[in-house]
Protein backbone atom coordinates (compact mmCIF):
# COMPACT_ATOMS: atom_id res chain seq x y z
CA UNK A 1 0.00 0.00 0.00
CA UNK A 2 1.19 3.49 -0.86
CA UNK A 3 0.13 6.47 1.22
CA UNK A 4 0.87 10.05 0.26
CA UNK A 5 0.27 12.41 3.15
CA UNK A 6 0.30 16.18 2.67
CA UNK A 7 3.29 16.41 0.34
CA UNK A 8 4.54 19.90 -0.49
CA UNK A 9 7.26 20.98 -2.89
CA UNK A 10 8.33 24.41 -4.04
CA UNK A 11 10.85 25.29 -6.71
CA UNK A 12 11.64 28.95 -6.20
CA UNK A 13 8.36 30.76 -6.77
CA UNK A 14 6.70 27.70 -8.32
CA UNK A 15 4.52 25.77 -5.90
CA UNK A 16 4.81 22.48 -7.78
CA UNK A 17 3.05 20.22 -5.29
CA UNK A 18 0.58 21.74 -2.82
CA UNK A 19 -0.46 19.45 0.01
CA UNK A 20 -1.10 16.32 -2.00
CA UNK A 21 -2.66 13.35 -0.17
CA UNK A 22 -4.05 10.08 -1.51
CA UNK A 23 -3.74 6.37 -1.00
CA UNK A 24 -3.24 3.43 -3.33
CA UNK A 25 -4.62 0.12 -2.02
CA UNK A 26 -3.23 -3.38 -2.52
CA UNK A 27 -4.89 -5.40 -5.29
CA UNK A 28 -6.13 -2.24 -7.00
CA UNK A 29 -4.93 -0.12 -9.89
CA UNK A 30 -4.87 3.51 -8.87
CA UNK A 31 -4.57 6.03 -11.66
CA UNK A 32 -2.92 9.44 -11.42
CA UNK A 33 -4.40 11.59 -14.12
CA UNK A 34 -3.60 15.14 -14.92
CA UNK A 35 -2.22 17.44 -17.56
CA UNK A 36 1.54 17.67 -18.08
CA UNK A 37 3.04 19.83 -15.38
CA UNK A 38 0.29 19.14 -12.84
CA UNK A 39 2.77 17.73 -10.30
CA UNK A 40 2.41 13.98 -10.93
CA UNK A 41 6.07 13.30 -11.67
CA UNK A 42 7.32 15.45 -8.79
CA UNK A 43 4.98 13.62 -6.43
CA UNK A 44 6.26 10.26 -7.68
CA UNK A 45 9.86 11.43 -7.27
CA UNK A 46 9.14 12.28 -3.65
CA UNK A 47 7.63 8.83 -3.30
CA UNK A 48 10.85 7.32 -4.68
CA UNK A 49 13.02 9.27 -2.18
CA UNK A 50 14.98 11.13 -4.87
CA UNK A 51 13.26 14.45 -4.14
CA UNK A 52 13.02 15.80 -0.61
CA UNK A 53 9.54 17.10 0.18
CA UNK A 54 9.27 20.49 1.89
CA UNK A 55 6.51 19.03 4.04
CA UNK A 56 4.45 15.86 4.34
CA UNK A 57 5.55 12.27 3.89
CA UNK A 58 5.23 9.28 1.62
CA UNK A 59 4.76 5.75 3.03
CA UNK A 60 5.33 2.42 1.31
CA UNK A 61 3.66 -0.37 3.29
CA UNK A 62 3.87 1.96 6.27
CA UNK A 63 7.59 2.71 5.82
CA UNK A 64 8.51 6.39 5.65
CA UNK A 65 10.42 6.85 2.41
CA UNK A 66 12.52 9.75 3.66
CA UNK A 67 13.48 8.08 6.93
CA UNK A 68 14.19 4.56 5.67
CA UNK A 69 14.68 4.87 1.93
CA UNK A 70 16.41 1.52 1.45
CA UNK A 71 13.68 -0.48 3.22
CA UNK A 72 11.01 1.40 1.27
CA UNK A 73 12.80 0.90 -2.07
CA UNK A 74 12.95 -2.87 -1.51
CA UNK A 75 9.14 -2.93 -1.45
CA UNK A 76 8.79 -0.58 -4.42
CA UNK A 77 9.18 -1.27 -8.11
CA UNK A 78 9.24 1.94 -10.06
CA UNK A 79 9.31 2.81 -13.71
CA UNK A 80 10.40 6.43 -13.48
CA UNK A 81 10.06 9.27 -15.89
CA UNK A 82 13.55 8.60 -17.26
CA UNK A 83 14.00 4.96 -18.15
CA UNK A 84 17.37 4.86 -19.87
CA UNK A 85 19.03 1.52 -20.54
CA UNK A 86 22.67 0.58 -21.07
CA UNK A 87 22.98 0.14 -24.84
CA UNK A 88 25.89 -2.29 -24.62
CA UNK A 89 24.21 -4.67 -22.18
CA UNK A 90 21.63 -7.32 -23.03
CA UNK A 91 18.16 -7.32 -21.53
CA UNK A 92 19.13 -10.25 -19.32
CA UNK A 93 22.19 -8.37 -18.08
CA UNK A 94 19.99 -5.43 -17.12
CA UNK A 95 17.87 -7.76 -15.01
CA UNK A 96 20.98 -9.36 -13.51
CA UNK A 97 22.45 -5.97 -12.58
CA UNK A 98 19.32 -4.57 -11.01
CA UNK A 99 18.39 -7.89 -9.41
CA UNK A 100 21.86 -7.98 -7.88
CA UNK A 101 21.49 -4.41 -6.63
CA UNK A 102 18.21 -5.47 -5.02
CA UNK A 103 20.14 -8.22 -3.26
CA UNK A 104 18.65 -11.22 -5.08
CA UNK A 105 20.78 -14.35 -5.49
CA UNK A 106 21.72 -15.43 -9.01
CA UNK A 107 19.30 -18.36 -9.40
CA UNK A 108 16.39 -16.24 -8.26
CA UNK A 109 17.27 -13.56 -10.82
CA UNK A 110 17.32 -16.22 -13.55
CA UNK A 111 13.93 -17.44 -12.39
CA UNK A 112 12.50 -13.90 -12.33
CA UNK A 113 13.96 -13.14 -15.75
CA UNK A 114 12.11 -16.13 -17.21
CA UNK A 115 8.84 -15.15 -15.52
CA UNK A 116 9.04 -11.51 -16.52
CA UNK A 117 9.99 -12.37 -20.10
CA UNK A 118 6.87 -14.53 -20.24
CA UNK A 119 4.68 -11.87 -18.66
CA UNK A 120 5.94 -9.08 -20.93
CA UNK A 121 6.29 -11.25 -24.01
CA UNK A 122 10.01 -10.53 -24.48
CA UNK A 123 11.65 -13.95 -24.29
CA UNK A 124 13.35 -13.54 -27.64
CA UNK A 125 14.73 -10.15 -26.56
CA UNK A 126 16.50 -11.43 -23.47
CA UNK A 127 19.92 -12.10 -24.90
CA UNK A 128 20.15 -9.24 -27.36
CA UNK A 129 21.94 -6.00 -26.61
CA UNK A 130 19.41 -3.22 -26.16
CA UNK A 131 21.18 -0.79 -28.53
CA UNK A 132 18.90 -1.66 -31.45
CA UNK A 133 15.62 -2.00 -29.55
CA UNK A 134 12.46 -0.18 -30.54
CA UNK A 135 10.75 2.20 -28.12
CA UNK A 136 8.27 -0.51 -27.12
CA UNK A 137 11.00 -3.07 -26.56
CA UNK A 138 12.94 -0.63 -24.42
CA UNK A 139 9.90 0.07 -22.29
CA UNK A 140 9.45 -3.65 -21.73
CA UNK A 141 13.05 -4.01 -20.57
CA UNK A 142 12.68 -0.97 -18.31
CA UNK A 143 9.50 -2.40 -16.74
CA UNK A 144 11.08 -5.83 -16.30
CA UNK A 145 14.04 -4.12 -14.63
CA UNK A 146 11.72 -2.29 -12.24
CA UNK A 147 9.87 -5.51 -11.36
CA UNK A 148 12.85 -7.86 -11.10
CA UNK A 149 12.69 -8.05 -7.30
CA UNK A 150 8.98 -8.85 -7.29
CA UNK A 151 7.91 -5.72 -5.41
CA UNK A 152 4.47 -5.63 -3.77
CA UNK A 153 4.11 -1.97 -4.75
CA UNK A 154 4.46 -0.92 -8.37
CA UNK A 155 4.63 2.63 -9.67
CA UNK A 156 4.51 3.25 -13.41
CA UNK A 157 5.06 6.81 -14.58
CA UNK A 158 3.57 7.17 -18.07
CA UNK A 159 4.27 3.51 -18.80
CA UNK A 160 2.52 3.49 -22.17
CA UNK A 161 4.24 6.58 -23.53
CA UNK A 162 5.59 5.88 -26.99
CA UNK A 163 4.02 2.44 -27.27
CA UNK A 164 1.98 1.35 -30.27
CA UNK A 165 -1.61 0.15 -29.93
CA UNK A 166 -0.79 -3.52 -29.59
CA UNK A 167 1.88 -2.91 -26.97
CA UNK A 168 -0.43 -0.60 -25.05
CA UNK A 169 -3.13 -3.25 -24.93
CA UNK A 170 -0.60 -5.84 -23.82
CA UNK A 171 0.64 -3.49 -21.14
CA UNK A 172 -2.89 -3.01 -19.79
CA UNK A 173 -3.27 -6.74 -19.48
CA UNK A 174 0.00 -6.93 -17.57
CA UNK A 175 -1.01 -4.16 -15.18
CA UNK A 176 -4.34 -5.84 -14.55
CA UNK A 177 -2.59 -9.15 -13.86
CA UNK A 178 -0.23 -7.52 -11.38
CA UNK A 179 -3.11 -5.94 -9.48
CA UNK A 180 -5.08 -9.18 -9.50
CA UNK A 181 -2.11 -10.95 -7.97
CA UNK A 182 -2.41 -8.59 -5.00
CA UNK A 183 0.05 -5.85 -5.90
CA UNK A 184 -0.59 -2.20 -5.28
CA UNK A 185 -0.28 -0.53 -8.69
CA UNK A 186 0.00 3.22 -9.07
CA UNK A 187 -0.25 4.30 -12.67
CA UNK A 188 0.26 7.84 -13.87
CA UNK A 189 -0.86 9.08 -17.25
CA UNK A 190 -2.11 12.08 -19.12
CA UNK A 191 -4.16 9.82 -21.41
CA UNK A 192 -7.79 9.64 -20.23
CA UNK A 193 -8.73 6.54 -22.20
CA UNK A 194 -6.06 4.55 -20.52
CA UNK A 195 -6.88 5.56 -17.00
CA UNK A 196 -10.59 5.04 -17.45
CA UNK A 197 -10.07 1.62 -19.04
CA UNK A 198 -7.72 0.37 -16.36
CA UNK A 199 -8.15 1.97 -12.98
CA UNK A 200 -10.17 1.02 -9.95
CA UNK A 201 -9.66 4.44 -8.50
CA UNK A 202 -8.72 7.70 -10.19
CA UNK A 203 -6.81 10.54 -8.55
CA UNK A 204 -6.95 13.69 -10.64
CA UNK A 205 -4.17 16.29 -10.44
CA UNK A 206 -4.41 19.89 -11.56
CA UNK A 207 -1.98 22.73 -10.84
CA UNK A 208 -0.17 20.86 -8.06
CA UNK A 209 -3.27 19.76 -6.18
CA UNK A 210 -5.49 16.70 -6.01
CA UNK A 211 -8.84 17.91 -7.34
CA UNK A 212 -10.65 14.58 -7.27
CA UNK A 213 -10.15 11.14 -5.73
CA UNK A 214 -12.91 8.68 -6.60
CA UNK A 215 -13.88 5.47 -8.43
CA UNK A 216 -14.92 5.88 -12.08
CA UNK A 217 -18.53 5.30 -11.11
CA UNK A 218 -18.46 7.94 -8.36
CA UNK A 219 -16.84 10.32 -10.79
CA UNK A 220 -19.61 9.92 -13.30
CA UNK A 221 -22.28 10.28 -10.62
CA UNK A 222 -20.66 13.35 -9.01
CA UNK A 223 -20.22 15.33 -12.18
CA UNK A 224 -23.49 14.22 -13.67
CA UNK A 225 -21.64 13.37 -16.85
CA UNK A 226 -22.19 9.97 -18.37
CA UNK A 227 -19.00 10.19 -20.33
CA UNK A 228 -15.76 10.06 -18.31
CA UNK A 229 -14.01 12.41 -20.68
CA UNK A 230 -16.50 15.15 -20.01
CA UNK A 231 -16.27 14.39 -16.31
CA UNK A 232 -12.49 15.01 -16.35
CA UNK A 233 -12.79 18.25 -18.24
CA UNK A 234 -15.53 19.32 -15.84
CA UNK A 235 -13.27 18.69 -12.83
CA UNK A 236 -10.02 20.12 -14.16
CA UNK A 237 -11.75 23.12 -15.61
CA UNK A 238 -10.17 22.80 -19.04
CA UNK A 239 -8.90 20.10 -21.33
CA UNK A 240 -5.47 21.66 -21.83
CA UNK A 241 -2.71 19.06 -21.62
CA UNK A 242 -5.03 16.05 -21.76
CA UNK A 243 -5.49 13.59 -24.57
Amino acid at each position, binding site marked *: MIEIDGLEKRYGSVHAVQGVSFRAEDGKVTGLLGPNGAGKTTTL*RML*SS*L*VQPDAGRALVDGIDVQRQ*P*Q*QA*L*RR*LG*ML*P*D*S*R*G*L*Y*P*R*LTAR*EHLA*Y*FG*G*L*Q*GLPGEEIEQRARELAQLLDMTELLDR*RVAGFSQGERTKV*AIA*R*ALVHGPPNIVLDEATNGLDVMSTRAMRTVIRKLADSGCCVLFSSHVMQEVSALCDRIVIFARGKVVSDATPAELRARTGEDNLENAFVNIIGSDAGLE
Partner: protein
Amino acid sequence: MIRLVLLKELVDHWRDLRSVAGSLVLVVLGPLLLFGMFQIVQNLEKERPLEVPVVGAEQAPHLIQHLVANGVHVLPPPADPEARVRKGDADMVLVIDDHYAERYKASQLAHVRLIVDDSRNESHKNVRRVERILLGYTQGLGALRLMARGVSPQVAAPLALEELDLATPQKLAANLLSMVPLFLMLAALVGGMNLAIDSTAGERERGSLEPLLLNPVSRRSLVVGKWLATALASTVVALLTLVGMMLTIQQLPLERLGMKIALGPREAGLIVAALLPLTLFGAAVQMLIATFARSFKEAQTYLGLLNLVPMVPSMFLMMGSTQNEWWMYPLPTLAQVTVVVSVLRGDLVPGWQLLVIALSSLLYSALCVAAIERLLRRERIIFGR
Protein backbone atom coordinates in the same frame (compact mmCIF):
# COMPACT_ATOMS: atom_id res chain seq x y z
CA MET B 1 27.33 -4.43 -4.15
CA ILE B 2 30.57 -2.59 -4.92
CA ARG B 3 31.82 -5.61 -6.84
CA LEU B 4 28.56 -5.85 -8.78
CA VAL B 5 28.77 -2.20 -9.86
CA LEU B 6 32.47 -2.58 -10.66
CA LEU B 7 31.88 -5.63 -12.85
CA LYS B 8 28.95 -4.07 -14.68
CA GLU B 9 30.93 -0.92 -15.48
CA LEU B 10 33.92 -2.91 -16.69
CA VAL B 11 31.82 -5.15 -18.95
CA ASP B 12 29.99 -2.12 -20.28
CA HIS B 13 33.26 -0.29 -20.92
CA TRP B 14 34.99 -3.27 -22.48
CA ARG B 15 32.20 -3.55 -25.03
CA ASP B 16 32.70 0.08 -25.98
CA LEU B 17 35.34 -0.91 -28.50
CA ARG B 18 35.86 2.52 -29.87
CA SER B 19 36.77 4.16 -26.60
CA VAL B 20 38.92 1.20 -25.54
CA ALA B 21 40.81 1.40 -28.82
CA GLY B 22 41.10 5.16 -28.40
CA SER B 23 42.80 4.84 -25.05
CA LEU B 24 45.15 2.20 -26.40
CA VAL B 25 46.43 4.59 -29.08
CA LEU B 26 48.45 6.25 -26.36
CA VAL B 27 50.04 2.95 -25.40
CA VAL B 28 51.54 2.78 -28.88
CA LEU B 29 52.08 6.48 -29.37
CA GLY B 30 54.14 7.07 -26.21
CA PRO B 31 56.95 4.61 -26.94
CA LEU B 32 56.94 5.57 -30.61
CA LEU B 33 57.39 9.22 -29.79
CA LEU B 34 60.14 8.43 -27.32
CA PHE B 35 61.92 6.38 -29.97
CA GLY B 36 61.55 9.13 -32.57
CA MET B 37 62.86 11.85 -30.30
CA PHE B 38 65.84 9.72 -29.43
CA GLN B 39 66.66 9.31 -33.08
CA ILE B 40 66.68 13.10 -33.43
CA VAL B 41 69.00 13.47 -30.44
CA GLN B 42 71.26 10.85 -31.91
CA ASN B 43 71.46 12.76 -35.16
CA LEU B 44 72.58 15.80 -33.20
CA GLU B 45 75.37 13.66 -31.85
CA LYS B 46 76.48 12.58 -35.30
CA GLU B 47 78.43 15.67 -36.26
CA ARG B 48 79.32 16.62 -39.77
CA PRO B 49 82.88 15.60 -40.51
CA LEU B 50 85.17 18.53 -39.82
CA GLU B 51 86.69 18.92 -43.25
CA VAL B 52 88.61 22.06 -44.12
CA PRO B 53 90.22 22.65 -47.50
CA VAL B 54 93.36 24.70 -46.91
CA VAL B 55 95.01 27.03 -49.47
CA GLY B 56 98.74 27.45 -48.90
CA ALA B 57 99.12 24.69 -46.37
CA GLU B 58 102.82 24.39 -47.17
CA GLN B 59 103.33 27.87 -45.68
CA ALA B 60 102.29 26.82 -42.18
CA PRO B 61 103.21 23.22 -41.36
CA HIS B 62 103.04 23.92 -37.61
CA LEU B 63 99.52 25.33 -37.84
CA ILE B 64 98.38 22.41 -39.99
CA GLN B 65 99.80 20.02 -37.42
CA HIS B 66 97.78 21.80 -34.75
CA LEU B 67 94.62 21.53 -36.84
CA VAL B 68 95.08 17.83 -37.53
CA ALA B 69 95.84 17.20 -33.87
CA ASN B 70 92.45 18.78 -33.03
CA GLY B 71 90.52 16.47 -35.34
CA VAL B 72 90.41 18.57 -38.50
CA HIS B 73 90.61 16.76 -41.82
CA VAL B 74 92.80 18.99 -43.91
CA LEU B 75 91.85 18.79 -47.59
CA PRO B 76 93.82 19.95 -50.63
CA PRO B 77 93.01 23.48 -51.88
CA PRO B 78 90.02 23.86 -54.23
CA ALA B 79 90.18 25.75 -57.49
CA ASP B 80 87.73 28.50 -56.53
CA PRO B 81 87.42 28.57 -52.70
CA GLU B 82 84.73 31.26 -52.53
CA ALA B 83 82.48 29.51 -55.04
CA ARG B 84 82.75 26.24 -53.16
CA VAL B 85 81.68 27.82 -49.90
CA ARG B 86 78.90 29.77 -51.57
CA LYS B 87 77.51 26.61 -53.12
CA GLY B 88 77.78 24.81 -49.82
CA ASP B 89 80.21 22.16 -51.07
CA ALA B 90 82.49 23.10 -48.21
CA ASP B 91 81.57 24.52 -44.79
CA MET B 92 84.60 26.81 -45.00
CA VAL B 93 87.95 27.21 -46.67
CA LEU B 94 91.08 28.29 -44.81
CA VAL B 95 93.37 30.55 -46.86
CA ILE B 96 96.88 31.03 -45.55
CA ASP B 97 98.53 34.25 -46.66
CA ASP B 98 101.43 34.08 -49.12
CA HIS B 99 103.71 35.88 -46.67
CA TYR B 100 102.70 33.72 -43.73
CA ALA B 101 105.97 31.76 -43.48
CA GLU B 102 108.33 34.73 -43.38
CA ARG B 103 106.12 36.78 -41.06
CA TYR B 104 105.70 33.78 -38.78
CA LYS B 105 109.45 33.35 -38.50
CA ALA B 106 109.86 37.06 -37.79
CA SER B 107 107.23 36.93 -35.07
CA GLN B 108 105.14 39.41 -37.02
CA LEU B 109 101.41 39.45 -37.52
CA ALA B 110 100.72 36.61 -39.95
CA HIS B 111 97.41 36.56 -41.84
CA VAL B 112 95.01 33.67 -42.31
CA ARG B 113 91.55 34.02 -43.78
CA LEU B 114 88.54 31.80 -43.08
CA ILE B 115 86.00 31.90 -45.90
CA VAL B 116 82.54 31.09 -44.56
CA ASP B 117 78.89 31.53 -45.49
CA ASP B 118 77.19 32.82 -42.36
CA SER B 119 73.72 32.17 -43.76
CA ARG B 120 74.25 28.42 -43.64
CA ASN B 121 73.06 27.19 -40.25
CA GLU B 122 74.30 23.67 -40.70
CA SER B 123 77.92 24.88 -41.04
CA HIS B 124 77.85 27.16 -37.97
CA LYS B 125 78.89 24.51 -35.56
CA ASN B 126 81.94 23.42 -37.57
CA VAL B 127 82.98 26.99 -38.31
CA ARG B 128 82.89 27.77 -34.61
CA ARG B 129 84.98 24.71 -33.86
CA VAL B 130 87.65 25.68 -36.36
CA GLU B 131 87.63 29.27 -35.09
CA ARG B 132 88.17 28.02 -31.60
CA ILE B 133 91.01 25.78 -32.70
CA LEU B 134 92.65 28.70 -34.50
CA LEU B 135 92.15 30.93 -31.48
CA GLY B 136 93.69 28.29 -29.27
CA TYR B 137 96.66 28.11 -31.59
CA THR B 138 97.24 31.84 -31.64
CA GLN B 139 96.87 32.12 -27.85
CA GLY B 140 99.22 29.21 -27.24
CA LEU B 141 101.78 30.53 -29.66
CA GLY B 142 101.56 34.03 -28.21
CA ALA B 143 102.07 32.68 -24.73
CA LEU B 144 105.15 30.77 -25.84
CA ARG B 145 106.61 33.89 -27.45
CA LEU B 146 106.01 35.95 -24.30
CA MET B 147 107.62 33.29 -22.14
CA ALA B 148 110.62 33.21 -24.50
CA ARG B 149 111.01 36.91 -23.73
CA GLY B 150 110.66 36.45 -20.00
CA VAL B 151 107.13 37.83 -19.71
CA SER B 152 104.31 35.94 -18.01
CA PRO B 153 101.64 34.99 -20.58
CA GLN B 154 98.99 36.07 -18.05
CA VAL B 155 99.91 39.69 -18.69
CA ALA B 156 98.53 39.37 -22.18
CA ALA B 157 95.52 37.32 -21.16
CA PRO B 158 93.52 39.23 -18.58
CA LEU B 159 90.42 37.13 -19.12
CA ALA B 160 90.15 33.37 -18.87
CA LEU B 161 87.01 32.50 -20.75
CA GLU B 162 85.59 29.07 -20.31
CA GLU B 163 82.44 27.98 -22.15
CA LEU B 164 80.21 25.24 -20.83
CA ASP B 165 77.86 23.87 -23.50
CA LEU B 166 74.68 22.58 -21.90
CA ALA B 167 73.06 21.48 -25.14
CA THR B 168 74.94 18.25 -25.16
CA PRO B 169 73.16 15.19 -26.42
CA GLN B 170 73.49 13.66 -22.96
CA LYS B 171 71.59 16.51 -21.40
CA LEU B 172 68.89 16.33 -24.07
CA ALA B 173 68.55 12.61 -23.63
CA ALA B 174 68.20 13.07 -19.89
CA ASN B 175 65.42 15.56 -20.51
CA LEU B 176 63.70 13.07 -22.77
CA LEU B 177 63.46 10.76 -19.82
CA SER B 178 61.01 13.12 -18.17
CA MET B 179 58.71 12.21 -21.07
CA VAL B 180 58.42 8.74 -19.59
CA PRO B 181 56.47 9.80 -16.48
CA LEU B 182 54.50 12.28 -18.56
CA PHE B 183 53.28 9.57 -20.89
CA LEU B 184 52.58 7.18 -18.05
CA MET B 185 50.41 9.78 -16.33
CA LEU B 186 48.69 10.72 -19.54
CA ALA B 187 47.96 7.05 -20.18
CA ALA B 188 46.56 6.73 -16.67
CA LEU B 189 44.22 9.69 -17.19
CA VAL B 190 43.14 8.84 -20.72
CA GLY B 191 42.69 5.16 -19.87
CA GLY B 192 39.84 5.84 -17.45
CA MET B 193 38.43 9.00 -18.91
CA ASN B 194 35.63 7.49 -20.96
CA LEU B 195 34.55 5.19 -18.20
CA ALA B 196 34.54 8.09 -15.74
CA ILE B 197 32.28 10.11 -18.02
CA ASP B 198 30.08 7.22 -19.11
CA SER B 199 29.34 6.17 -15.54
CA THR B 200 28.43 9.68 -14.35
CA ALA B 201 27.43 12.32 -16.89
CA GLY B 202 26.66 9.55 -19.40
CA GLU B 203 24.52 7.67 -16.92
CA ARG B 204 22.40 10.76 -16.38
CA GLU B 205 22.30 11.75 -20.05
CA ARG B 206 20.94 8.39 -21.15
CA GLY B 207 18.42 8.46 -18.31
CA SER B 208 19.66 5.44 -16.42
CA LEU B 209 20.79 7.32 -13.32
CA GLU B 210 17.31 7.71 -11.88
CA PRO B 211 16.45 3.99 -12.19
CA LEU B 212 19.86 3.12 -10.76
CA LEU B 213 19.27 5.28 -7.68
CA LEU B 214 15.91 3.54 -7.10
CA ASN B 215 17.75 0.46 -5.86
CA PRO B 216 18.23 -0.09 -2.14
CA VAL B 217 21.97 0.51 -2.41
CA SER B 218 23.92 3.27 -0.71
CA ARG B 219 25.27 6.06 -2.87
CA ARG B 220 28.68 5.21 -1.51
CA SER B 221 28.62 1.65 -2.87
CA LEU B 222 27.62 2.91 -6.30
CA VAL B 223 30.28 5.63 -6.37
CA VAL B 224 33.05 3.40 -5.02
CA GLY B 225 32.20 0.66 -7.55
CA LYS B 226 32.31 3.11 -10.44
CA TRP B 227 35.47 4.72 -9.08
CA LEU B 228 37.33 1.42 -8.79
CA ALA B 229 36.23 0.43 -12.30
CA THR B 230 37.60 3.71 -13.66
CA ALA B 231 40.85 3.32 -11.72
CA LEU B 232 41.24 -0.24 -12.95
CA ALA B 233 40.82 0.81 -16.58
CA SER B 234 43.39 3.59 -16.03
CA THR B 235 45.79 1.18 -14.41
CA VAL B 236 45.60 -1.32 -17.25
CA VAL B 237 46.33 1.35 -19.85
CA ALA B 238 49.14 2.82 -17.72
CA LEU B 239 50.72 -0.60 -17.21
CA LEU B 240 50.59 -1.38 -20.92
CA THR B 241 52.24 1.95 -21.63
CA LEU B 242 54.91 1.20 -19.04
CA VAL B 243 55.68 -2.13 -20.71
CA GLY B 244 55.88 -0.37 -24.08
CA MET B 245 58.24 2.23 -22.63
CA MET B 246 60.44 -0.44 -21.07
CA LEU B 247 60.74 -2.31 -24.36
CA THR B 248 61.53 0.95 -26.19
CA ILE B 249 64.19 2.03 -23.71
CA GLN B 250 65.85 -1.35 -23.97
CA GLN B 251 66.10 -0.85 -27.73
CA LEU B 252 67.61 2.62 -27.47
CA PRO B 253 71.41 2.89 -27.76
CA LEU B 254 71.64 4.86 -24.52
CA GLU B 255 75.19 3.74 -23.72
CA ARG B 256 76.42 5.42 -26.86
CA LEU B 257 75.14 8.68 -25.44
CA GLY B 258 77.00 7.98 -22.24
CA MET B 259 73.78 7.31 -20.30
CA LYS B 260 72.95 4.50 -18.01
CA ILE B 261 69.29 3.87 -17.45
CA ALA B 262 68.20 1.19 -15.08
CA LEU B 263 64.79 -0.18 -15.96
CA GLY B 264 64.47 -3.71 -14.68
CA PRO B 265 61.69 -5.37 -12.68
CA ARG B 266 62.73 -3.59 -9.48
CA GLU B 267 62.56 -0.16 -11.11
CA ALA B 268 59.29 -1.01 -12.85
CA GLY B 269 57.89 -2.04 -9.46
CA LEU B 270 58.85 1.32 -7.95
CA ILE B 271 57.29 3.18 -10.86
CA VAL B 272 54.06 1.20 -10.50
CA ALA B 273 54.03 1.92 -6.77
CA ALA B 274 54.23 5.64 -7.52
CA LEU B 275 51.71 5.46 -10.35
CA LEU B 276 48.93 3.43 -8.72
CA PRO B 277 47.92 6.18 -6.27
CA LEU B 278 47.63 8.55 -9.20
CA THR B 279 45.29 6.25 -11.11
CA LEU B 280 43.05 6.09 -8.02
CA PHE B 281 43.11 9.83 -7.46
CA GLY B 282 42.85 10.67 -11.16
CA ALA B 283 39.78 8.45 -11.49
CA ALA B 284 38.13 10.13 -8.50
CA VAL B 285 38.79 13.65 -9.84
CA GLN B 286 37.59 12.72 -13.30
CA MET B 287 34.35 11.31 -11.90
CA LEU B 288 33.80 14.33 -9.67
CA ILE B 289 34.21 16.71 -12.60
CA ALA B 290 32.09 14.55 -14.90
CA THR B 291 29.34 14.30 -12.28
CA PHE B 292 29.27 18.06 -12.04
CA ALA B 293 29.26 18.61 -15.81
CA ARG B 294 25.89 19.22 -17.37
CA SER B 295 26.36 16.85 -20.27
CA PHE B 296 28.59 14.15 -21.70
CA LYS B 297 30.18 16.65 -24.06
CA GLU B 298 30.80 19.19 -21.36
CA ALA B 299 32.47 16.48 -19.29
CA GLN B 300 34.68 15.54 -22.22
CA THR B 301 35.78 19.15 -22.59
CA TYR B 302 36.68 19.48 -18.91
CA LEU B 303 38.50 16.16 -18.73
CA GLY B 304 40.38 16.96 -21.92
CA LEU B 305 41.74 20.01 -20.14
CA LEU B 306 42.49 17.94 -17.04
CA ASN B 307 44.73 15.73 -19.20
CA LEU B 308 47.04 18.71 -19.66
CA VAL B 309 47.75 18.92 -15.93
CA PRO B 310 50.56 16.29 -15.89
CA MET B 311 52.48 18.45 -18.34
CA VAL B 312 52.99 21.13 -15.70
CA PRO B 313 55.37 19.20 -13.43
CA SER B 314 57.25 17.81 -16.42
CA MET B 315 57.87 21.32 -17.68
CA PHE B 316 58.83 22.36 -14.18
CA LEU B 317 61.40 19.60 -14.07
CA MET B 318 62.68 20.25 -17.60
CA MET B 319 63.21 23.88 -16.64
CA GLY B 320 65.89 22.66 -14.34
CA SER B 321 64.79 22.16 -10.77
CA THR B 322 66.25 18.79 -9.93
CA GLN B 323 66.20 19.14 -6.17
CA ASN B 324 63.71 16.73 -4.66
CA GLU B 325 61.90 18.40 -1.79
CA TRP B 326 59.52 16.83 0.71
CA TRP B 327 56.57 18.97 -0.40
CA MET B 328 56.66 17.45 -3.87
CA TYR B 329 55.42 14.08 -2.65
CA PRO B 330 51.91 15.01 -1.56
CA LEU B 331 51.39 16.77 -4.92
CA PRO B 332 50.02 14.25 -7.42
CA THR B 333 51.70 14.30 -10.86
CA LEU B 334 54.71 16.26 -9.53
CA ALA B 335 55.38 13.38 -7.14
CA GLN B 336 55.13 10.82 -9.94
CA VAL B 337 57.49 12.75 -12.21
CA THR B 338 60.00 13.12 -9.40
CA VAL B 339 59.93 9.46 -8.45
CA VAL B 340 60.02 8.10 -12.01
CA VAL B 341 62.91 10.33 -13.02
CA SER B 342 64.80 9.38 -9.85
CA VAL B 343 64.20 5.71 -10.52
CA LEU B 344 65.38 5.99 -14.12
CA ARG B 345 68.50 7.81 -12.99
CA GLY B 346 69.19 4.94 -10.65
CA ASP B 347 68.72 7.07 -7.51
CA LEU B 348 67.28 5.66 -4.35
CA VAL B 349 63.59 6.10 -3.66
CA PRO B 350 63.01 5.89 0.08
CA GLY B 351 59.92 4.05 1.24
CA TRP B 352 58.56 7.11 3.05
CA GLN B 353 58.21 8.92 -0.26
CA LEU B 354 56.04 6.18 -1.70
CA LEU B 355 54.05 6.10 1.53
CA VAL B 356 53.43 9.86 1.42
CA ILE B 357 52.32 9.57 -2.21
CA ALA B 358 49.95 6.69 -1.47
CA LEU B 359 48.42 8.20 1.67
CA SER B 360 47.95 11.68 0.22
CA SER B 361 46.34 10.34 -2.95
CA LEU B 362 44.03 8.07 -0.95
CA LEU B 363 43.00 11.03 1.18
CA TYR B 364 42.22 13.18 -1.87
CA SER B 365 40.34 10.28 -3.48
CA ALA B 366 38.23 9.80 -0.38
CA LEU B 367 37.34 13.51 -0.41
CA CYS B 368 36.33 13.28 -4.08
CA VAL B 369 34.24 10.16 -3.50
CA ALA B 370 32.48 11.86 -0.59
CA ALA B 371 31.83 14.91 -2.76
CA ILE B 372 30.33 12.77 -5.56
CA GLU B 373 28.13 11.04 -3.00
CA ARG B 374 26.81 14.41 -1.88
CA LEU B 375 26.27 15.55 -5.45
CA LEU B 376 24.20 12.43 -6.15
CA ARG B 377 21.69 13.60 -3.53
CA ARG B 378 21.05 16.85 -5.35
CA GLU B 379 18.03 16.99 -7.60
CA ARG B 380 19.89 19.17 -10.08
CA ILE B 381 22.52 16.44 -10.50
CA ILE B 382 20.12 13.46 -10.56
CA PHE B 383 17.64 14.92 -13.02
CA GLY B 384 20.06 17.18 -14.86
CA ARG B 385 18.14 20.41 -14.52
